[in-house]
Structure formats: structure tokens, C-alpha cells
């Protein structure tokens, strides 16, 4: 890397790796409090129905049951992570809108009794006509999922950049294709869970929740429980995976707090796996039509998108999702003229929410697939086409993005080389092929209020460093990356750092883990805090050494004058001297960071630069299609990845590798299959995401670009990595058997059908 870092840039195990391998890492369900009660949620078996009457009397009488509540018992307060899109109650009021909608909750002395009690609740429903396809749901006369939302279109956006539709007149070729992406479940290994406790004397709630967004959760709880935020403390224990599925408040959070308050005892709610599949969140199924106008030299001149997202019964992050889906079509390729129309449509099905990529994977699949089709139709090599249209750092950007670093073109070249593109594309025997996909992702989205992150770093007299950060580590290693940044600034090894994180009662604000903003946002905040602390120490030491503060260096647990390592003190001696000089201890540094933006704007209103920086990458896949059975084997997957500077290459690799399997699942294996609104495969067995046996050969290549805004040059590496594997695989399938698949997943059955109808037509679209 050329830089002389000791901790940043080093492959280091996660801070809590030891605890995790010993089984002592504490997840929410591992918490046990004295007198703790257990809760379960009763859910609607119908996709759309009025709740006529709920009889909880039998359940209440069951020995061991301490409480039963329904929608009638809770305040008339909706929740939602985006304030203007709040449309959901913790327990349904008046009607249920999907199979799985929460209707009642019980609280009992043990899980078995709680489960039994659910069986004793009688709900009388009046079934209503339901709608299961977004295109049908938008039509006149379709049943309304929410009465006040005409045509079931809860959010629409239309953005135009450049000349709009007119630009197509200047194109030499215009192509239009429609694509479909399926519903995908996050399927984190740890089910959703919460434990709440109430102190009646101070009127304070403490809730431990498996969440990605402690601070937003606190806000939603305050709103729905009618308790001030100052009286709610959200603590995030270890989280066993989230991938976006643990963004949002859930019935378990609300009900755990509710019962804790009413009963004065701690209450635990843990979801069954089936509930995670049906009643949490999923990636929105989306229809995306792309019209692309090309110049004959192979440059993209104009693009127009029509996107219809199947939102399910509630909004969740809808406005954010549909907007991200739009804006991030402007990277990694230069699109001088863009029109995007996106609609988020209600249906009586499981709720769509943020999932790794958050609206961008579906759009990316469409773009990358179409690019390949265009390449074939125009007789240009797909890799060349991508390089030709790549944006570059420092260029003027049609959408107003500020791209300080961009390794995209380089990533295409490197990925192509690593997969053997020249030797293989179009040249392998029938049934084998290579394909690629490009991607780019923002490191956290800047243009919204309230996306700042804070950190406090303290240096005690023992020389140990404590970091307080609001960042929510959900297994990606956020705490470790932050600790590495602080360690580097203070010149100490990683083992000297203790991190306390994601506790709204103690740690500074952080929006949470979504949009891949943590490394840049929380990392920068921690960096500033460490520097602030270091400055205080340096000022003092400079005096002692009769040197200039600006000439001092902190490294190897020492502080010394640059170039003269003997002219210095050990860190411990410096701290001791600081203390003896009667200066306040511990030495504290504070920092807070928000991505630069001209003025606070909201994503939906303003234009401009949406992220402090953008990651870029290309993924290339080699596949083998068994033409007798339709099975696809992903032989190898290569990622050439520009995340600026990897703070911890070991962790970045982990993200790449996990994303490849995730993308492979999305391309070939996964589908939340719904029949009449009911999920048919709500189990690990039937949902079938890849096992170790399906793992391809994986290679990761770093493209270092050293971003000026990211801490130590870093950019995101958590979500962008899962955008391109699916199109890369489907593009490779085209190379292998000459068939274009425009819908995900590409199952063996689809392949066999298509092989039989080989003259270009794909199988009929399976509606939800």
C-alpha cells in the first residue's frame, strides 16, 4: 500500500472473535434476567381481512399466562423508519393485510405456555378480496391494501436528468427490455429477538434488541409506546446477521417493552424461523423495464427506467428504497440523460424492506443484463463496453455526484483478466461460459438530516483506550474497523482498544448499519475523536519535549519527534506526566462526522451528491450448465474491488466471499414462493440457500484508490459487493448456452424449458 500503517490495512481477527469461538458472545436470546417472562405473537392466517372480534379470554385463563394484548390495547401510533411513510401498527388494528400480520401478543412464564396460549386466542375475521401482484394492484378496482392509498401506490418518484426523452432521438440504437427480480429473504442465522426490562421508579425502559438501528428503534419505541426517548435505552447485543432485515421496529420490540412496563418483569420475545421468513422483511420483488439509447460508438447516451416494486403490505423503507434504486443507476456508468419512474406498490404479501443493496440489486440486475444484451446486439465485447462507459474520478457527473475516486475501469480489466475473459468468452464448449457485472454503491447516503455519527475516545492512566461509538456491529466487524482506526491514530496495537458500542444510553448517536455508511461515517467520527484526544496529549508532550506539536508522532505506544525516535516518551509515561500535571483524566477526545452536503436536503427532494464516496467493483463468473438437468454450477467467481483502502483486508475479503454466495443464492437458488399470499417455503429446508457444497472457487482482487473523504482512504465494502454476482452469473449462462434470462431466479426448471424453446423466448413469467 505504500503507507506505513501499523494497524490499519492489516489483516486482523475481529475483536470479539475469541468470544464467538468460545460461545460466550452474547446474543439477545442468550440474555436471562431474573423473573423473565416469555412472549409470542399471534399472526393472521389470511392475506386480507377485517378483524371482527378477538376473544382472548381462554388464553388469559391459562395457568402461567401473565398478559394478552391486541391492537385495541395499544396506542394509535404508527411506526416506520421513514417518518413520512409510517403505516404500520405493532399489532394490527381493524384489519390484517398479509398472512403473518401481527394480531395479538401473549406473555407467559415460559415459552411452552406462551405457545399454548396462542392456540387459545379466537379471532373472527371477515375475509376481504386480496391482491398479490403489483401490476394488478395498481389497476382500477383492485382491492385497496390501505384505504387511504389509491391504486395501492404508496410511493412514486420520477426523476429526470439531462434532456430526458428527447435524448433518445440522438441515439443510433434504442433497446428496451423488461426484467424481474424475485423476493429474497435475508435469512440471518439468528432469528429476531428482544428482551425488555422496566424500572417503575424511574419510568425507564431498557431493551436489548437484535437490531441494526438502535437509535431509530429508540425513536420508534418512544412514538408507539408514548414514552419519551430519554426514558428508553436500547442496547444492541451481538447480532447474528442482519443484511437489512433487522432495520425497523418489529412487534417483538414493542410487545417486549409493553409487557415489561405493564407487568414489571423482564420480557423476552424470540421469533420462530418461520416468522422470520414470513413476518419480518424481504427484498422487494421488482419489475424493471429499461430503455437504453446507444451511440454507434458504444457509448450510452440515454436511459429510461420504469420500476414497479412489490412492497407487500406495508412501507417499511419504501421511499428510501425506491429512491436509491433510481439514483444509483448513475454509477458506475456515465448516463448523460436519465429518466427514472419508480413505484412502490402495496400487495397483500410479506413486507419488503431493506436488503443488502436496498433496491439497487434489482436495478443493477436489469442494467447489467441489458448491457450484455446490447453488447451482443451491437457486436461489442461486454468488458470493453463497460470500460468504455465507465465514469472516472473528478469528472463532471450528470446527477451531480462528486466522484473523488473511481477504480471501476480498472476493476473491469482486472476481473476480466482473472477469469480468463479473452480466452473464454464465446470460446468455451457449449454449456460453459463466463459473464461479468459491474456495480457501485454509496458509502452511506448523505442527503438526509440525522445521518451523523459521533464517537468518544478516552485514554485512561493504564494506557488502555476506550472507544464509545454508536455503530451497530452486526457481524461485519464495524467495531473492529473503528478500533483499528483509533489504534492507528494513537499509535497503539489493536489489543489496547476496548469498544463500547450501540447503547443509546451511553454511546454517541449513530444512524445504524444500513446503506453501508458505517466505516466511512462512524470510522471518520472515531478518527476525529482519536485525533482530538491525541492533540491534547501532543500539546502537553510538545511542551515537555520543547518541540512543536505538529512534529510529534504516535507509534508503537510511544510519542516522539518525527525522525528522532529517541526524543520522546512512552505513552504510559506521557499519560502519567499528564496526570501529575493535574490535568483532567481520563483524556477525552470527541468527534462527530456527517458526509458533506451543501445544505440538509432529503433524498426525494434534492439533487446533488448523495454519498461521501462510492465503491466500485466488477464481478466475473464462470459457470457450467448441465443441459440435461438444467443445474448450474458456479465454477469460479472473481471480484475486483475498489473500496478505497481496505482498513482490514481480512474483513473485506469476508464481505466479498459472503456476497458471492449471497448473490449466487439470488441468481440460482432463492425465492420466497407465495401462493395466495402465503409463503410456501418458510423454512431453511425449503428456502434452500447455498451450503458449503455449492461454494465456487472465489478470488478477490483489490483495486486501491485511497479516497480523500474516507478514513484512511476507505470506502464501503458491505453492500456493493452483492450487486453484481447475480447478473454476472446470468450473463455467464448466456455465454454458456446462448439463452437470455431476464428473470430471477434462474432455476434448473427454467433452463430446461428454455433449452427446449431455444429460439430466444424465455419461459412465461411466474406471477407471485
Amino acid at each position, binding site marked *: 500500500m505504500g503507507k506505513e500503517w501499523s494497524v490499519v490495512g492489516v489483516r486482523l481477527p475481529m475483536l470479539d472473535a475469541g468470544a464467538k469461538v468460545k460461545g460466550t458472545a452474547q446474543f439477545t436470546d442468550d440474555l436471562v434476567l431474573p423473573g423473565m417472562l416469555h412472549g409470542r405473537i399471534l399472526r393472521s392466517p389470511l392475506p386480507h381481512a377485517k378483524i371482527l372480534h378477538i376473544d382472548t379470554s381462554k388464553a388469559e385463563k391459562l395457568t402461567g399466562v401473565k398478559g394478552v394484548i391486541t391492537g385495541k390495547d395499544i396506542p394509535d401510533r404508527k411506526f416506520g423508519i421513514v417518518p413520512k411513510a409510517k403505516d404500520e401498527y405493532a399489532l394490527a388494528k381493524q384489519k390484517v393485510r398479509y398472512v403473518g400480520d401481527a394480531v395479538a401478543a401473549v406473555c407467559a412464564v415460559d415459552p411452552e405456555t406462551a405457545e399454548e396460549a396462542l392456540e387459545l386466542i379466537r379471532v373472527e375475521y371477515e375475509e376481504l378480496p386480496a391482491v398479490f401482484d403489483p401490476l394488478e394492484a395498481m389497476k382500477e378496482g383492485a382491492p385497496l391494501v390501505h384505504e387511504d392509498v389509491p391504486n395501492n401506490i404508496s410511493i412514486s418518484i420520477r426523476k429526470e436528468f439531462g434532456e430526458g426523452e428527447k435524448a433518445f432521438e440522438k441515439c443510433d440504437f434504442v433497446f428496451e427490455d423488461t426484467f424481474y427480480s424475485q423476493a429474497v429473504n435475508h435469512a440471518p*442465522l439468528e432469528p429476531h429477538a428482544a428482551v425488555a426490562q422496566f424500572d417503575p421508579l424511574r419510568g425507564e425502559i431498557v431493551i436489548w434488541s437484535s437490531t441494526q438501528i438502535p437509535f431509530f428503534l429508540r425513536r420508534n419505541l418512544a412514538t408507539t409506546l408514548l414514552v419519551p426517548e430519554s426514558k428508553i435505552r436500547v442496547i444492541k447485543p451481538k447480532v447474528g446477521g442482519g443484511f437489512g432485515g433487522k432495520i425497523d421496529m418489529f412487534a417483538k420490540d414493542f410487545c417486549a417493552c409493553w409487557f415489561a412496563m405493564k407487568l414489571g418483569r423482564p420480557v423476552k420475545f424470540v421469533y420462530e424461523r418461520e416468522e422470520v421468513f414470513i413476518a419480518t422483511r424481504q427484498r422487494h420483488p421488482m419489475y424493471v423495464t429499461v430503455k437504453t439509447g446507444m451511440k454507434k460508438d458504444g457509448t450510452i447516451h440515454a436511459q429510461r427506467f420504469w420500476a414497479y416494486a412489490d412492497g407487500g403490505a406495508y412501507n417499511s423503507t419504501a421511499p428510501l428504497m425506491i429512491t436509491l434504486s433510481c439514483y444509483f443507476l448513475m454509477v458506475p456508468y456515465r448516463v448523460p440523460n436519465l429518466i427514472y419512474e419508480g413505484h412502490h406498490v402495496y400487495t397483500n404479501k410479506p413486507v419488503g424492506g431493506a436488503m443488502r443493496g436496498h433496491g439497487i440489486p434489482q436495478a443493477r440486475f436489469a442494467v447489467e443484463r441489458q448491457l450484455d444484451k446490447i453488447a451482443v446486439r451491437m457486436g461489442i465485447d461486454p468488458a470493453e463496453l463497460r470500460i468504455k462507459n465507465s465514469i472516472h474520478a473528478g469528472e463532471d457527473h450528470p446527477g451531480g455526484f462528486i466522484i473523488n475516486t473511481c477504480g471501476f475501469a480498472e476493476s473491469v480489466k482486472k476481473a476480466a483478466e482473472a477469469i480468463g475473459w479473452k480466452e473464454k468468452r464465446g470460446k468455451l464448449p457449449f454449456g460453459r461460459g463466463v459473464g461479468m457485472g459491474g456495480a457501485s454503491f454509496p458509502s452511506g447516503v448523505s442527503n438526509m438530516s440525522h445521518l451523523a455519527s459521533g464517537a468518544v475516545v478516552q485514554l485512561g492512566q493504564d494506557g488502555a483506550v476506550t472507544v464509545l461509538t454508536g455503530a451497530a456491529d452486526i457481524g461485519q466487524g464495524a467495531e473492529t474497523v473503528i478500533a483499528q482506526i483509533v489504534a492507528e491514530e494513537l499509535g497503539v496495537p489493536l489489543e489496547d482498544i476496548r469498544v463500547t458500542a450501540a447503547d443509546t444510553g451511553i454511546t454517541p448517536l449513530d444512524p445504524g448499519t444500513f446503506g453501508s455508511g458505517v466505516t466511512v461515517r462512524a470510522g471518520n467520527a472515531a478518527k476525529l475523536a482519536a485525533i482530538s484526544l491525541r492533540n491534547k496529549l501532543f500539546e502537553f508532550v510538545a511542551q515537555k519535549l520543547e518541540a512543536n506539536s505538529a512534529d510529534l508522532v504516535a507509534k508503537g505506544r510511544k510519542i516522539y519527534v518525527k525522525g528522532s525516535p529517541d526524543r520522546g516518551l512512552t505513552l504510559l509515561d506521557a499519560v502519567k506526566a499528564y496526570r501529575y500535571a493535574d490535568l483532567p483524566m481520563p483524556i477525552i477526545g470527541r468527534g462527530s462526522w456527517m458526509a458533506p452536503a451543501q445544505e440538509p436536503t432529503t433524498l426525494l427532494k434534492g439533487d446533488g451528491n448523495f454519498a461521501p464516496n462510492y465503491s466500485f467493483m466488477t464481478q466475473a463468473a464462470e459457470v457450467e450448465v448441465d443441459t440435461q438437468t438444467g443445474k448450474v454450477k458456479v465454477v469460479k467467481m472473481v471480484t475486483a474491488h475498489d473500496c478505497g483502502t481496505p482498513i482490514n483486508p481480512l474483513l473485506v475479503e469476508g464481505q*466479498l466471499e459472503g456476497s458471492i454466495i449471497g448473490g449466487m443464492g439470488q441468481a440460482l437458488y432463492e425465492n420466497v414462493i407465495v401462493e395466495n399470499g402465503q409463503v410456501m417455503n418458510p423454512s431453511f429446508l425449503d428456502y434452500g440457500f447455498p451450503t458449503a457444497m455449492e461454494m465456487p472457487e472465489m478470488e478477490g482482487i483489490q483495486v486501491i484508490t485511497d479516497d480523500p473523504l474516507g478514513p484512511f482512504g476507505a470506502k464501503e465494502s458491505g453492500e456493493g459487493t452483492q450487486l453484481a454476482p447475480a447478473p454476472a452469473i446470468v450473463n455467464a449462462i448466456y455465454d454458456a448456452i446462448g439463452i437470455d434470462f431476464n428473470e430471477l431466479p434462474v432455476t434448473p426448471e427454467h433452463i430446461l424449458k428454455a433449452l427446449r424453446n431455444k429460439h430466444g423466448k424465455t419461459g412465461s413469467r411466474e406471477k407471485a
Partner: protein
Amino acid sequence: MKHAVALSVNGDTYDVLISPNETLLDVLREKLGLMGTKKGCDLGACGACTVLVEGEAHLSCLMLAIDAVGREVVTIEGLAQGGELHPLQRAFVEKGALQCGFCTPGMILTAKAALDEEAKPTEASIKKKMAGNLCRCTGYKKIIEAVSSVAALSGKEG
């Protein structure tokens, strides 16, 4: 009807009162307070609940606790000896073979059962035996590397 039984877990004897319909997983977690064994799906399809019973990998969510009476059970808590990490645990840490850590105890115990059964397995054999342990974070690569590295070690020591 509850039965008073003695369960042998990690070399310790626990006297517990259990109903026949309690799974070993629930008894380990709820009655013995051993939280290292995880509940990922409760239906035997993810391996997060793996424990060793007489040295072999079992899905504790599909075992009756009462069926474990008289059989040596080892959970993740029983692996490290006197504060020293087991080589598999060390390898997982060093290779970065974990992210969220939820599947990790199950992965490590299955690996142990696999290596105890076959000291020098091929990579294919490792994959096949580990495949019943699902992971959503890592993509499996570093996990297989970690297990392979320990398998390679044992050869040298043998």
C-alpha cells in the same frame, strides 16, 4: 410428568428436572444456562444447535434431553481446556472464519467431530461433513480453510 435425571455435559454432572418433551437444546440453554449452543431454526436444517454426543455431531434441537441421559455431551463451552483455545477455535480466529459468530459454535463442533473421525480428510470430505452447518455471512471459504489448516496440523504432530 417430569423426570429427575442427571445429564453429563462437558464433564460435569447436572441434576435436572425435565419433561420428556424438552429438547436437549432447550434444556442446555434454559435449564443449564449453557448459551453457546444456538437455536437457528429448531427443525434440524441449519446445524447451529450442533453438540457432540459421545464425540459425534448431533442436532440438539432434534434430540430429547431425556435421550441424552447416560451419554457424554460436549457443547462449545467444553472445548477450550483451562483457558487455552482448542486448535479449531484458534484457527477460526486466525483465518477470519467467522463474522456474526452465530453459526460458529455449531461449525466448530461439527469440524471437531469430522476431524476426530478422519484425521486427514480431503477438502471434499470436509465440505461434505460441514455442509449441514449453514452460514449466511462468510461464504464458507474461510471456514473450510480453517478446518483444513487444523487437519494439516494434526498430520504433522502425528
